[in-house]
Each structure stands twice: as C-alpha cells, then as structure tokens.
C-alpha cells in the first residue's frame, strides 16, 4: 500500500522535473530539474524493490528467517545510477561555467541569439 503511494509520488516528481527542464530557459534551473528527475527515479526503484516486503535484505545469521525481505536487485541497480548522476551533474555544471565565461549569461535564449549573430 505505502509502496504504491511512493511509486505515484516518484512519478509526479519525474513529471514536474521533466516539465521544468523543458519550460525554463535558465541553465542552472534546468540542471536542478534534472537532479529532481534523477532523485525521483531513485525513489521509484526503491519503491519497486519494497513491493514484496520492507525488511532490509541483510541476513545477520545463517538460517534465513521467513520474513518479507525487500528485493535486493533493484537496489543494487540504482547504486550505479546515483554515482553516474553525480558525475553527469558535475560535467553539466562545468559546461555551464564555460558558457558563462564566454557569453556572461546562463539564459539559453540569449545565448542562442548571440550564436545566430556570430554566424551571420
């Protein structure tokens, strides 16, 4: 029951983040929205893994008790996504710093206008 609620919450978060990425013209805000989408995907996978049970999948002693453990495989998959998301956010911020040093603005519409002016 609670995992269904968390699944729908994470979907709403991903929806809002995608809309934010599309609708704002500020590069820093776009990167923040991408961070929201990444966090929502992490939450989605965690909620999926807790469908069968909510106990953490760590077995302290060997005869395994018969309680409802969470699924370990989505959690192991999402560990990859967290670190890669960190690297991607850093790279995007690097590109933003380069653009700001060159054009002195982070507004994507203004930068596009300047690029068209350069080509002519």
């Amino acid at each position, binding site marked *: 029951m609670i995992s269904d609620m968390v699944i729908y919450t994470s979907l709403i978060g991903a929806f809002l983040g995608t809309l934010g990425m599309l609708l704002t013209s500020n590069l820093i805000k776009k990167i923040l929205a991408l961070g929201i989408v990444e966090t929502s995907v992490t939450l989605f996978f965690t909620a999926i893994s807790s*469908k069968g049970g909510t106990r953490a999948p*760590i077995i302290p002693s*060997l005869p395994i008790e018969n309680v409802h453990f969470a699924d*370990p495989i989505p959690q192991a998959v999402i560990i990859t996504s967290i670190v890669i998301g960190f690297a991607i956010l850093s790279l995007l911020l690097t590109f933003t710093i380069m653009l700001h040093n060159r054009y002195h603005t982070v507004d994507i519409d203004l930068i596009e206008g300047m690029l068209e002016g350069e080509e002519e």
Partner: protein
Amino acid sequence: MNLKRILAISIVCYIFVLFFFQVDFTAALEAQSKINTLVEKVKIPNTVTAVYLRSRVYDTLFEVIVFSVGVLGVTIMLKAEPRSELSEQTIFGTAQVYSSGIMAISVTIFLYVVLNGHISPGGGFAGGVILASSVVLYGVSSSFIKALSHYEKLRMKILENIALVIILSLMTMGLSFPNFTFGLNEAQSYGSILSGGVIPLINLLIGLKVYAGAWKMASEFVVRRGTL
C-alpha cells in the same frame, strides 16, 4: 515558440498519463528465493553487495570507469578557464576546531563503512562520499589552501590510478573465474570481515577512488569560482 512549448507540455503529459494508467505495478515480486540463492552462492550477509560486487560485477566495473571519465572531463574542461585568486579566508576559531574534529571522525567512519560494507549497510561509494564531503566542509569553513595541499602531499593522483588498476584486474579475475575468492571464505565464520574474500579490499579501493574523484571535482569548482 509558443506552439513548440504547448506541444512539449502535451507530449510530456501524454507519456506520464500512459505511465499512470497503463503500467501495472501490482505484480508481487518474490524476493525470498533470490535472497536464498545469493546467500548460498556468495556467503555474505549483505545481499545488495553480493549483487553488485559478485553476480553483476560487470555493471560496477563500467560504473567506476564512467566515473573516472567524468572526473577526467571536469578536470580537462576546466583547465582552460581562468583561476580565481585564493586568499586566506576569515576563520572563526569554533568552526575551525569543529570542522577538523569532523574530518578526524569521518576518516574513522570511512574505514568502518568501507570495511563493513558486506556485513552492514554501506560500501565503497557511500564511504568515499562521506570522506570527500567532510574534507570539502573543512576546506570551505577553515582553510582551502591547507585542504588543497593534502592532495599533493599524499600523492592522491598516483594512489587513485593504482586503485583503478587493481580494481580492474580483480574484477576481471572475478569475471573470468567465478570461483575466485582468495580462499578466505572457507576458513572464516559467516558474518566476519575476512569472510568476504576480496570484497572488503575492492570496497576500500572503490572508496579511495570515489573520494579522490569527488574531492578533485569539488576543488576544481572552488578553485575556478572562489570560496563563498
């Protein structure tokens, strides 16, 4: 411009409405049999570590490589940008004492989280981020020049590369020979640190790698844009 915007909003709404009403999330996942198989095969308590360092080690291998490439990209791209002047910050005595204390504690926490990664929650990635964030806190609140100097003093660059090479070779060995455990598994009881074979060693090296990468990225940003 306006038409494009409306089109984008409607496409996103359509995709997410499909998600909400069409995808069936109600299928119950049976985790017990997976956990039984994992514990029987790998013989460590933390089954998440068992997945990402033994049965899905290929994923982790390329994850470490992608992280290294990301760090390399940030370093190379920012090399062309102008550096800002690093001056001595105004230091509050209390903040200096507390941030040094937090750094000293976090080294211990790093070793605990990394070496117990296959027994309790934790692992290499979490431990590396703990150490890096405490060093960044020390640099921002006390003295950034002092925090920068440890990267040269401890020869982190060489250490990082050695860690990457050892991780690559150990993981490739684990991939090619599925029974490769250094033989520590049989001698130790279930749940002790040495019962993991090479898993604590790989966790330690991944922790060092993530720490060096995260600190390098953060320090590059601070060097280019200045402290607060």
